[in-house]
């Protein structure tokens, strides 16, 4: 390639990288600019004393606290439900699956990844109606149904990242423990999974983000504008993305709108905290898994 071509490719690459940073920066600055003014204890806890709210002594009626708790619970329950299935399926695809069975499972995994979230929401909604009719009158769209639906939504991420992380381990490293008399499962759990943990955690982080931001699924499966703290897994709940959605379409004054922006900042903050937690857990896990044996 001639010199001019090389310079323009380099320039273009830089420009693309820069636009990514600029886009992210713009969104954050915009959010902070619009929402920072609304970030105070009043926004989160309303007229209730913060300590009373945190210790669950008094309910919060006009603050974001129930939505924050709802979102955190939703994310954690969804990821905890999806994780074992996603890990196991990823291990199957990377280590056990061969030939046609593997191809078919991979195809299903890709199709699941392509299903629009509103369809997953509709499925969850139908499921809750089915359960209501045939299992128990007490089952309505609720936290548990939402979490189950969301776990469907993030399953493909977990499966794929687990599979790819395992498949990327070079073949010499796969043979080390086997040559020392490790069984297949011992090799997977003592050597391969610890090696693949970084990749697996990146899948968990993607899933956390997806669960925290998704609105379509929870709208159909149990989130409401006013529920207070969820009383049980089978109760209705509030969540930040839904709050942001309805406040932005139905706000009555500027203060309410600012509260919506504040909710958005908090949502980003929750994601950040959960990401850091995922990394922390990963490091502890590496220690436990690698240094136990």
């Amino acid at each position: 390639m001639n010199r001019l071509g090389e310079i323009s490719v380099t320039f273009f690459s830089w420009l693309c990288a820069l636009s990514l940073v600029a886009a992210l920066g713009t969104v954050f600055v915009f959010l902070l600019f619009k929402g920072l003014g609304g970030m105070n204890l009043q926004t989160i806890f309303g007229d209730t004393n913060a300590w009373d709210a945190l210790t669950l002594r008094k309910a919060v009626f006009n603050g974001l606290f129930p939505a924050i708790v709802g979102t955190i619970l939703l994310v954690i329950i969804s990821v905890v439900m999806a994780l074992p299935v996603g890990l196991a399926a990823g291990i199957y695809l990377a280590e056990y699956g061969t030939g046609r069975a593997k191809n078919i499972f991979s195809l299903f995994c890709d199709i699941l990844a392509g299903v629009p979230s509103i369809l997953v929401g509709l499925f969850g909604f139908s499921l809750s109606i089915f359960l209501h009719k045939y299992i128990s009158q007490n089952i309505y769209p609720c936290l548990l149904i939402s979490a189950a639906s969301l776990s469907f939504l993030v399953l493909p991420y977990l499966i794929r990242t687990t599979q790819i992380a395992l498949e990327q381990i070079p073949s010499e490293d796969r043979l080390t423990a086997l040559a020392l008399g490790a069984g297949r499962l011992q090799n997977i759990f003592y050597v391969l999974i610890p090696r693949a943990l970084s990749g697996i955690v990146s899948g968990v982080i993607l899933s956390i983000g997806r669960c925290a931001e998704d609105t379509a699924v929870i709208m159909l499966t149990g989130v409401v504008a006013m529920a207070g703290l969820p009383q049980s897994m089978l109760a209705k709940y509030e969540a930040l993305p839904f709050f942001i959605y309805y406040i932005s379409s139905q706000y009555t004054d500027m203060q309410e709108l600012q509260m919506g922006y504040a909710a958005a900042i908090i949502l980003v903050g929750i994601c950040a905290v959960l990401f850091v937690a995922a990394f922390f857990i990963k490091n502890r896990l590496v220690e436990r898994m690698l240094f136990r044996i």
Partner: protein
Amino acid sequence: MVEEDKIKIEIENLSFFYGEHRIFHDVSTKMMANKITAVVGPSGQGKSTFLMIMNRLWENIPQARLEGHVHILLKNRMTDIYARDVSLPDLRRSVGMVFQKSNPLPMSIYKNMAFPLKLAGIKNQAQIEEKVEAALRDAFLWNEVKDRLSHDARSLSGGQQQRLCIARALIIGPELMLLDEPTSSLDARAAAIIEELILLLKKRCTVFLVSHHMEQIARLADTVMALEDGKIKPV
């Protein structure tokens, strides 16, 4: 227990394929117990594959296929290692292997050494400590690492890492050791120590060595075989 003049490995009509590509064609040979048998030959002829046939490690390579019979003298009994009732972990505990590139696991020196014992289900800490020390002594490594057993094994020098891998393979008491070019990535001094170690190994087990370093073969091997065009020939 010295098994002089006993046959350790007996290979009959062995053919090996990677997909459609045939690596070995109808190979039959024998190897004596408590000797160092070396296989030489140009690279890409499947020398490493030949070693992996003895502990069935090749079965983890996709599209590989084997025909023929391999018997190894294990616990004083000629065992068909491809028989259905052979347990792979047990086989690989009896047939140890050291690779061309040293492969310590990403953990401490001590944990590396204890790893095969833990895999075998040994839990007695005192027993493990004793075996770790003995194996490290056998591999001429104890004096160099005894004060830093908790350090990451990857912080050792190349030669030390390779000796650690030999010690790690020795700790479960293999009857046959497969060595795949164990000194090819080391400098002359580190290689000399390992050669000395290999010579001592044959007192306790049979050694099957792959190398393309002819002088080293001359110094170490009791029997030399050449691998060429899918056939094994005595040299």
